[in-house]
């Protein structure tokens, strides 16, 4: 392990050094938003590449943990199958319809979990002081925290979500229009972005409450569990909460219900089914603001 980390540091040292020099040559020039984003993504790519190489040094272990990740996620769906062995419908929805909700939410969550799943380690870094190391590097802290211990095994979750989604799409008798076809990738991408925003906001919260990383789990894992079931199962108050306060309903419920041609229990206009990209953009912007506020409020222990 120590070996691979050392190896990784060497890989990253080159490009980071360059960025450092670039900043040196214009010490007083503020970087534009576009440059910051580009640098951040580049750093993210380099750090993840390092972790992937480190993971691949132990291929058998990777294969086992990826399968474990797949199997653990698949049990959720087995539980749903068991429920359907006893009842024909849950909340008025058939198995393929629930599978569509499950596949969309599971895949979207899997994408966010793969990209940003390490955010819940932030609290630990604040506690043991290793966050300071990240602050002095000329790379956006968010990119470093997000890519920290990038876990390729989380592909297991995405694979499982996609398989269930594939089953649902194959079995469901939907009258497909080009618009409905486009809705599927749109839902996956914006749903992933909404979950990603929740991960980042949860990270920002950990600057304030370091030990509270489990609160984040309620909204990420809990949100994913919630969205796997039809909205008709839940109380109106809960639905209002996840539609207007924390807009998880836009991850899969609203677009999927449009595809299925089913009404949402709350009285909303039809166009909200197409709103997920906008909602996702809004969530990401707010999460960005929260992240900066958290980072600015951070005071190192100084030891």
């Amino acid at each position, binding site marked *: 392990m120590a070996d691979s980390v050392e190896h990784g540091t060497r890989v990253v040292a080159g490009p980071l050094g360059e960025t450092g020099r670039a900043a040196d040559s214009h010490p007083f020039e503020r970087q534009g938003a576009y440059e910051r984003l580009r640098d951040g993504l580049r750093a993210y790519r380099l750090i993840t590449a390092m972790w992937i190489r480190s993971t691949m040094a132990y291929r058998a*272990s990777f294969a*086992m*943990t990826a399968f*474990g990740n797949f*199997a*653990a996620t698949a*049990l*959720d769906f*087995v*539980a749903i199958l*068991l*429920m359907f*062995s*006893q*009842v*024909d*419908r*849950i*909340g008025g929805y058939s198995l393929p319809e629930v599978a569509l909700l499950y596949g969309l939410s599971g895949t979207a969550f899997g994408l966010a979990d793969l990209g940003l799943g390490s955010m819940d380690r932030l609290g630990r870094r604040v506690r043991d002081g290793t966050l300071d190391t990240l602050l002095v590097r000329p790379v956006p802290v968010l990119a470093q925290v997000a890519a920290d211990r990038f876990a390729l095994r989380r592909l297991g979750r995405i694979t499982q979500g996609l398989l269930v989604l594939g089953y649902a799409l194959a079995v469901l008798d939907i009258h497909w229009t080009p618009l409905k076809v486009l809705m599927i990738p749109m839902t996956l991408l914006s749903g992933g972005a909404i979950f990603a925003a929740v991960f980042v906001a949860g990270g920002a919260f950990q600057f304030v*409450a*370091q*030990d*509270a*990383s*489990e*609160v984040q*789990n*309620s909204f990420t894992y*809990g949100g994913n*569990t*919630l969205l796997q*079931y039809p909205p*008709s*199962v*839940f*109380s109106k108050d*809960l639905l209002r909460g996840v539609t207007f306060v924390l807009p998880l309903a836009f991850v899969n419920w609203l677009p999927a219900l449009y595809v299925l041609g089913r009404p949402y229990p709350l009285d909303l206009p039809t166009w909200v089914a197409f709103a997920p990209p906008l909602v996702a953009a809004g969530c990401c912007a707010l999460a960005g603001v929260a992240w900066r506020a958290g980072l600015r409020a951070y005071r190192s222990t100084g030891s």
Partner: protein
Amino acid sequence: MGTARLYAAVVGSGFRRYATYRTATAAGVFTNTVFGLILAYLFIALWDTKPHLGGYDQAQALSYVWVSQALLMVVAVLGGGFEDELIERIRTGDIAIDLYRPADLQMWWLAQDVGRALFHLLGRGVVPLVFGALVFDLALPSNPLAWLAFLVAVVLGVVVGFAIRFLVALSAFWLLDGAGVAQLTSIAGIFCSGMLLPLNVFPGALGEVVRALPWSSLIQAPVDVLLGTADPLGTYAVQASWAVGLLAAGRLVQSVATRRVVVQGG
């Protein structure tokens, strides 16, 4: 007498150790409550469609949700707790120090885990259950004896849970990295303990199998004793035989494993 005092002290330190992290406890209570809410609404939908599913009425099904959320951490279905630490000690060789301590390895960790379970019962268990009882109509007994009978089943469940995880930890003597075994066991725990769905709802032969496995002692057994849907003495007998059998297996594996330990000088 001296040994009893020793293990009582270890129980106390296990309790205090977990009681230290108050924010984490509050965050955990919040998470259990959120998952409890989601499952409660789901179970209402299921039991509306098919009343008396698995022999429960709706109030009993809802009680199942909230009691199982309260017990999740107590019996450590998802793993965590002592075994990660024990695996690490086996991997690094610190286990050699533990082995020449004047305390039994298995009893020491059991005492520590009982202390942890006691804290999780009070710190993580009470609040979600009270919340559930306030928001939903539950079928919780008012007879204190029923609660006492429930606590006995919980204690036995904690011991069975410990005995399983002790075996998991000992696998590190052979594998060095216990992560894979721990992950497989936690998957089995999630599925076979009744954490996702009561085991009496599982259909056919699958239901027979999961109800016969040791994980049924963790959540299903205590909940059934509390709800009065199972005979307490019969349930205790099953739980106790798993506890004794698995602890004995742990002891056997421990004696084989410790013979493998080679302490390097220097």
